[in-house]
C-alpha cells in the first residue's frame, strides 16, 4: 500500500444557513486547496459525497461540481454517501498509482426539510417507511435495547452530552456547546424515550473539504502530514429486527481491519449522532477509559448529514497536525442505528 496523508482540511457548520449548498461549499473547498499548497490544477482526482434527498432534487452534486470548478475537465467521481466514503474512494484511486493527490469534499443542508422525517425514507420502503418512523424514534429503539442490555443508565448518556458540549466550547464550528451538568439535562422531558434533546444531534448545514496526497508529496507539502495508516468500512444487515441493535459488528470489523488494535490511540473522533451510540461504538472499538473521545464536541454538537463523518476525520487530522496527539481513531457512520461504519487510523510522524 502507498502511504497517503491528509495535508489540509476545512469545514463550515452553521445551525441554519441562508446560503445554498454551492455557496456554502465553494469557500470551504478553496480554503482546503489553498492550505494544501498544491495548485488546483495539479490535484489528480476529485471525489465528493452528498445526498439528493437533502436538496430535494436530483443531481445535487452536479451543481456542486460546477461551483467547485472542473475546467479543464477533471478525473472525478461522487458517492451518494457521507464524504468519509468519498475519502475512501479517493484513497483507493491513489492506491492504484493512477494519481498522487485528491480533493475530497462533502456537503449537506439539513435545514431545508425535516431531516429526522426525511431519514424515514432510508428504511425498508415496503414495510417500514410507510409507518414514517423518524430518525429519533429509530435511534430511541436502539437506545432502549442498549440500556436494558447493559449496566448503563440515562445518566451515562447525559454524561456524554455534558462532556461533548463542554469540549465543543473550544470548537468554533460546533453549533451546540456550553457548560452544563447531568442533573440539569436529566430534568428535561424526553424527546423520544429514553432520549432527551441532549441525546440527539444538533443538526447543521455545512460542508467539509480535504486534500490527501501520496508519500513524498506529503512530506514536501506539510511539516507534519497526517498519515492514513489504515482505513476500512463495513455494513450490517438492514432489517432492524435482524441484528442486535445494541452492538455495531460492522464497526468492530472495520476497526480491526483498519489496524486500530495494533497500538493504543491517543484520542478518537467518533461519528456518534446520539449519545448512546458513542457508548456502543466505544465498546466496538475496544477503547480504554483513558482515551479521550471527540475533543471537537463530535457529531452531537454539529451534525451536517453527509459530511459529519468526513468532518470527524478532518477534526482528528487537525488535532494531530497541531501535535495534540500522535495516533487517533477517526470514524464515520451512515444508515439507521449505526448500520454502516468506516474507521481510519491516523498518525503523525
Amino acid at each position: 500500500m502507498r502511504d497517503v496523508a491528509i495535508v489540509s482540511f476545512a469545514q463550515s457548520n452553521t445551525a441554519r444557513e441562508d446560503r445554498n449548498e454551492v455557496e456554502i461549499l465553494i469557500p470551504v473547498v478553496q480554503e482546503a486547496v489553498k492550505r494544501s499548497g498544491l495548485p488546483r490544477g495539479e490535484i489528480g482526482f476529485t471525489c465528493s459525497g452528498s445526498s439528493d434527498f437533502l436538496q430535494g432534487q436530483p443531481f445535487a452534486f452536479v451543481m456542486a461540481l460546477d461551483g467547485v470548478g472542473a475546467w479543464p475537465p477533471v478525473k472525478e467521481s461522487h458517492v451518494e454517501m457521507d464524504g468519509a466514503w468519498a475519502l475512501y474512494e479517493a484513497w483507493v484511486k491513489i492506491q492504484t498509482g493512477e494519481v498522487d493527490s485528491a480533493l475530497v469534499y462533502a456537503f449537506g443542508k439539513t435545514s431545508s426539510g425535516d431531516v429526522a422525517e426525511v431519514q424515514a425514507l432510508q428504511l425498508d420502503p415496503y414495510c417500514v417507511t410507510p409507518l414514517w418512523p423518524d430518525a429519533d424514534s429509530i435511534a430511541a429503539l436502539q437506545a432502549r435495547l442498549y440500556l436494558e442490555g447493559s449496566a448503563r443508565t440515562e445518566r451515562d448518556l447525559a454524561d456524554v452530552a455534558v462532556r461533548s458540549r463542554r469540549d465543543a466550547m473550544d470548537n468554533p464550528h460546533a453549533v451546540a456547546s456550553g457548560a452544563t451538568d447531568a442533573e440539569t439535562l436529566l430534568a428535561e422531558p424526553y424527546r423520544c424515550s429514553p432520549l432527551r434533546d441532549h441525546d440527539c444531534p444538533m443538526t447543521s448545514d455545512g460542508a467539509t473539504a480535504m486534500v490527501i496526497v501520496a508519500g513524498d508529496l506529503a512530506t514536501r507539502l506539510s511539516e507534519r502530514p497526517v498519515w492514513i495508516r489504515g482505513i476500512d468500512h463495513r455494513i450490517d444487515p438492514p432489517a432492524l429486527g435482524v441484528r442486535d441493535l445494541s452492538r455495531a459488528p460492522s464497526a468492530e470489523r472495520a476497526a480491526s481491519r483498519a489496524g486500530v488494535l495494533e497500538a493504543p490511540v491517543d484520542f478518537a473522533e467518533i461519528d456518534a449522532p446520539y449519545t448512546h451510540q458513542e457508548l456502543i461504538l466505544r465498546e466496538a472499538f475496544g477503547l480504554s477509559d483513558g482515551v479521550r473521545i471527540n475533543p471537537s464536541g463530535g457529531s452531537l454538537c454539529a451534525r451536517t448529514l453527509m459530511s459529519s463523518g468526513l468532518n470527524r476525520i478532518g477534526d482528528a487530522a487537525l488535532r494531530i497536525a497541531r501535535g495534540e496527539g500522535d495516533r487517533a481513531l477517526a470514524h464515520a457512520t451512515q444508515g439507521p442505528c449505526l448500520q454502516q461504519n468506516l474507521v481510519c487510523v491516523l498518525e503523525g510522524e
Partner: protein
Amino acid sequence: MAIRCGVVGIGQTKYDAKRIDVSMPGLVREAALRALEDADLTFADVDAVVIGKAPDMFEGVMLPENYLADAVGASGKPLLRVHTAGSVGGSTAIVAMSLIQAGIHDRVLTLSWEKQSESNAMWGLTLSPPFSVAVVAGAGGYFAPLIRSYIQRSGAPEDVGIRTALKDRQNALKNPYAHLRIEGIDFDQIANSPMLWDPIRYLESCPSSDGACAMVVAREELALKAPRPPAWVLATAMRSEPNQFPGRDAVNPQAGQLAARDLYKQAGIGNPRREIDCAEIYVPFSWFEAMWMENLGFAALNEGWKMVYEGATALDGDLPVNMSGGVLSSNAIGASGMVRFAEAAMQVRRQAGEHQLDDVKIAMGHAYGGGSQYFALCLFGVEKP
C-alpha cells in the same frame, strides 16, 4: 504497475417497463445471482460490493443500498454506492475495478440498477431549482437543442437519427434481455412516430425501464481460474466537466475527448477505428451515436453521421455499435452504463448469443451523464494486457 483485472461473471435482468414481479431487492438479486452463476461463485467468494444507480428520487428511497445490503450479499463487507448521473453504471464498474487494481480486494461484485416504475423519471429529471424557472421537460428536452446544433454544424441528412434507431431496434430483436423488441420494425414506422422534442421522435428515444446489471471482477490469478474466459480490463478512463460556462461545447464535450484519448493511450491504441472491433455506446437518443463517434475519435469532426449512413456501425459494419440494441432498447437509467460495459465484455467473452460478433479482440464500453458532462470508458480485451 497496477494489478491486472478481469471480468469473470456477468448477469442481467430482463428489462421491462414494469417489473412488478420483483421488489427492489428481488431485482438486484436477480442480476447478482446470474453474475455469480456465470463466474461459478457464491456471495461468500466476494470481498466487497460496489453499487451504482442514478438519482434516489427515481424510486423514492434515500440511499437505498443500505436497505439492499442483504439482497446483494454485502452484509459484513464493504459496500460503496457511486452516483455520477447517467454515467454511473460505467463509473461504478470502474470503482470496482480499481479496488482490484489497487490490490485491496481479490473479487468484487459490482451492480447497477434502476426501478423506474416506482416513479416517473421524466419528471424526476425535470429540475425545478428554487427561485429559478424550469426550462426543459425531461432529458429529451435538454438534449434536443444539442442535436439541432449538431445537425446545423455537420450538415447531416435529417434521417440519420431514424437510421440509427432502426439499426438499434433491429439489433434488440437478437437480445432476449432487451425491453423494446418491436417485431417488423421499419424505417417508416420510426419516421412516422410522434415528434417528442424536435428532432427527436418517439421511436428515436430510450424507454423507461426497470432492470439491473451485475459483474464480478477479479484479480489476475483468480480470473485465470474462472470457468469461462475473462474479459481483461485493458484501460479505464473517467472525466467530468462543468454543466455550463461561456464557450463550452456541449455537442462535442472536451471531457469525452480527453477520456477517449487517455483510454487509447493507456491501451496503446493509435487508430481506434481500426484497432477496436466493436463498441457499446451510451445513446439515449438516436442522434447521439453519430455525435459520439466524433467525440470518441472514431470519425473526423462533422463526419460521424457518415458512419451511420454507410452502415459502418451495423452488425456487419467495420465498427459495430450497440449490438445489444443499446440504451434505445433498454434504459434502466442507473444500470445503462454498466450494461454497455457488460455487453462489451460479453462480446470479448463470446457469450452474446444471437448478437455475438465474429472475431472480437477489443471492445469498448462507454457511458455518459449529466448535461453531457460525465464520461466513463473502458476497453476490454481477449488477450491479457
